[in-house]
């Protein structure tokens, strides 16, 4: 080691609106002897969300100034040969000179990427997103959760890396492969015993040793458990008395896979006070354990806590089945509509579309999309429009309806005119309707979402949708 390790500059986390009440869901499986005894909630992605959109949403607040590098981590990324990190560059409107990296292969990949960024002292964002498939009735289906997390690193930050260790261990607790996209699990007792004793506890011990601390000094933990309920045993064997925020996350939103540990890190950092030690551990084919010393409040940590505490509970198991791809509903002939996105068109407009870049004309009016001749009344010819990113700007509903005729995988299809405070007006889809839905004048925030899915060709496009500016609070 020739240079000082980097630090955490800021954290971010994103969870979808819906939270399935696991106990209610388990009742639906009782007849089959499946489901078991369940508690807590499972975060469920909308039809228009995926691992990439989760990672992008989690990263949005971390890129006010552009990082030198952005890394995307997931085991459920939608594309196998298309860089999601490069897509993130466009979605977050970062310079094209931003270095990119994509990592996968294990749930641990995000923590590994973070460790690399810290050891390299990089000005970097590590963005993780996960929407893992699971079969209905399997323990994973209710245990998993969908969501994203992100960490900004730099040479200076509120939480310094003071110790770390890595263990590579091909422990086959579960695996997924091409053609077998859902994880195949090993016997739980085997996983609990071996993962604890041979992988996680040794990694934690080594990380604490390099930090020059005793595990008992850890104030907050974000240790990704291979299976729920392992923390008590891990903590006892490692000599830790601190709470594990990864366990809380699993209980209240589910196991977020590659995004889990970094989201839990945000929760742990939010609970920490200056001087505290925070333990992060990512598990999967081994373990990366990192120890941080917290010097100040970490930007974004409070928003991670808020993300966990807001959402909308649902007991609708059938809707859950449909949203997780376990129920192939026949929506009729209108759903046969196909849309092919052309690479040539994406090359011309893709970056401005996914980055939600409009333009300001010579009179100051903002519009989307940009056009050679502005939409402003009286504009008489071509103008060079100044780029304006609309993704983070406030807006209101100008007109709206809940369309029950056109196909959408999760009806109704909300859409209407969105009026931005800066003057831009755009016809948009709405998403995340809760309660009675939208009315004229409602405050809106923008969310990156899937715009279209071309199942036949394995393609999807992304754009932004208007969501309620605030989410309801979940009952504790």
């Amino acid at each position: 080691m020739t240079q000082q390790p980097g630090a955490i500059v800021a954290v971010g986390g994103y969870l979808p609106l819906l939270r399935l009440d696991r106990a209610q869901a388990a009742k639906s499986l009782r007849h089959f002897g499946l489901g078991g005894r369940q508690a807590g909630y499972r975060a469920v992605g909308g039809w228009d969300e995926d691992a990439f959109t989760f990672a992008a949403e989690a990263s949005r607040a971390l890129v006010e100034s552009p990082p030198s590098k952005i890394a995307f981590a997931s085991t459920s990324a939608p594309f196998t040969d298309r860089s999601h990190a490069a897509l993130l560059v466009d979605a977050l409107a970062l310079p094209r000179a931003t270095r990119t990296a994509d990592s996968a292969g294990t749930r641990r990949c995000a923590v590994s990427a973070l460790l690399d960024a810290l050891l390299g002292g990089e000005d970097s964002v590590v963005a993780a997103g996960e929407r893992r498939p699971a079969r209905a009735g399997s323990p994973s289906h209710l245990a998993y959760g969908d969501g994203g997390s992100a960490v900004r690193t730099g040479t200076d930050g509120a939480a310094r890396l003071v110790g770390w260790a890595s263990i590579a261990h091909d422990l086959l607790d579960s695996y997924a492969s091409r053609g077998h996209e859902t994880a195949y699990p090993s016997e739980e007792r085997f996983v609990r015993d071996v993962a604890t004793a041979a992988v996680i506890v040794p990694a934690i011990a080594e990380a604490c040793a390099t930090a020059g601390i005793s595990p008992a000094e850890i104030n907050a933990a974000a240790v990704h458990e291979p299976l729920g309920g392992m923390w008590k045993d891990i903590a006892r064997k490692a000599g830790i008395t601190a709470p594990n925020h990864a366990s809380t996350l699993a209980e209240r939103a589910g196991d977020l896979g590659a995004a889990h540990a970094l989201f839990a890190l945000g929760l742990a950092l939010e609970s920490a006070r200056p001087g505290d030690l925070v333990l992060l551990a990512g598990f999967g084919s081994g373990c990366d354990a990192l120890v941080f010393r917290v010097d100040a409040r970490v930007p974004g940590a409070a928003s991670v806590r808020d993300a966990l505490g807001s959402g909308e509970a649902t007991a609708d198991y059938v809707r859950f089945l449909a949203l997780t791809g376990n129920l192939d509903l026949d929506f009729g002939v209108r759903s046969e509509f196909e849309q092919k996105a052309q690479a040539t068109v994406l090359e011309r407009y893709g970056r401005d579309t996914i980055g939600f870049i409009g333009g300001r004309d010579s009179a100051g009016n903002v519009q989307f999309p940009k056009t050679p001749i502005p939409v402003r009344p009286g504009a008489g010819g071509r103008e060079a429009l100044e780029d304006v990113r609309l993704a983070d700007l406030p807006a209101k509903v100008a007109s709206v309806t809940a369309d029950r005729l056109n196909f959408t995988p999760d009806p109704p299809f909300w859409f209407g005119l969105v009026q931005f405070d800066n003057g831009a007006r755009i016809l948009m889809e709405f998403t995340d309707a809760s309660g009675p839905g939208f009315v004229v004048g409602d405050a809106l925030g923008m969310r990156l979402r899937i715009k279209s899915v071309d199942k036949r060709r394995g393609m999807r496009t992304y754009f932004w949708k208007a969501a309620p500016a605030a989410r309801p609070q979940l009952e504790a």
Partner: protein
Amino acid sequence: MATGIKDRVAIIGMGCSVFGERWDRGADDLMIEAFEEAIADAGIDRAQIEAAWMGNALDDINIGNSALPLAHALRLQTIPVSRVENMCATGTEALRAAVYAVASGAIDFGLALGVEKLKDTGYGGLPLRTKGLANDLWMPYGSAPGTFAQLAGAYSARHALDGGDLKQAMAHVSWKSHQNGALHGKAHLRKAVEMDTILKAPMIADPLGLFDCCGVSDGAACAIVTTPEIAKSLGIDNPVTVKAIQLSASNGWEMGYGEWDGASVRNTQVAAGRAYAEAGIKDPRAEISLTEVHDCFSVTELVTMEDLGLSDPGRAPFDILDGKFDRGGAIPCQTDGGLKCFGHPVGASGLRMAYEVYNQLKGRAGERQLANVDFGLTHNLGGAPFNSVAAVSILGRLD
């Protein structure tokens, strides 16, 4: 200085197929059905037609592109045939093309024919189509009722109207059209419906229920036009003439510039203003005898009454509930049932509107005949309130 087309073109023959679910008829059958009525009405030989325009909006359903389907169906002999398309304003656009050709002196006899075979889609409502590869990257795929439902919320917000009042007025629009459609043997929906049934219908796009939406139909309508002088030479003493045809189209202002309040359709206002000027109409409320407007959805008709200047802003719901636009009212609207009940084969609708006004002017409207008809207005609206093409035409008699 252009002087417009007032009284420069006469309509000497019109025809309209039965509208509806014409499972046993193809597009060519529908075109022939409309044309045979029109050519018999005109009393000319088909060989005298020198040019034809076919209005067809959805070429992916049954018809195919170009105007060749018209040339094939009618076996037109090597005359120029052209397809025109301007979404739901297509029918009026076809009429405008033929009228302009005659007015220019290029031809003596022109044919305008609109046709649509919508019921080959295999499902209800209009087919869902791409909006263009670049627009598809961001623009929502809202349905037609979804786009027009936006008018309702914006209208209520602008006029501080209780949603229940608007719903009641919208229901009256549909109730009235069902009353009228029941009297027309060619209408798609020929059954009167109770207000309560309309109000309790399933929701399609909030707040539009099933009965707030027009019928999606198969059908064709056509017109044969010539000069008033030729019309008189054919023995038509006081022919129906075109007083005005005007269009206005969106340039992106409504949906891209934060000025429009969404409670009216600017293109209708503009096209109507131009049409009144072209026709010499000074006081539409006193001079217009009847209207056939684009009631694709009940709220569209309601807003159109204001955009045409037939109701004061914010008063259309109350005028409607007072019966002003009922068949026995001051300015009857949709005496044939309108899009709502006569049906809406998109490319044919503008010509179907003209067909009803033409028959009213000629005193041929049977049970629906109005007592005094001097000027009839048709209003054809393509697209969505936030991105539209509005066409307004005014028909009357030469003298």
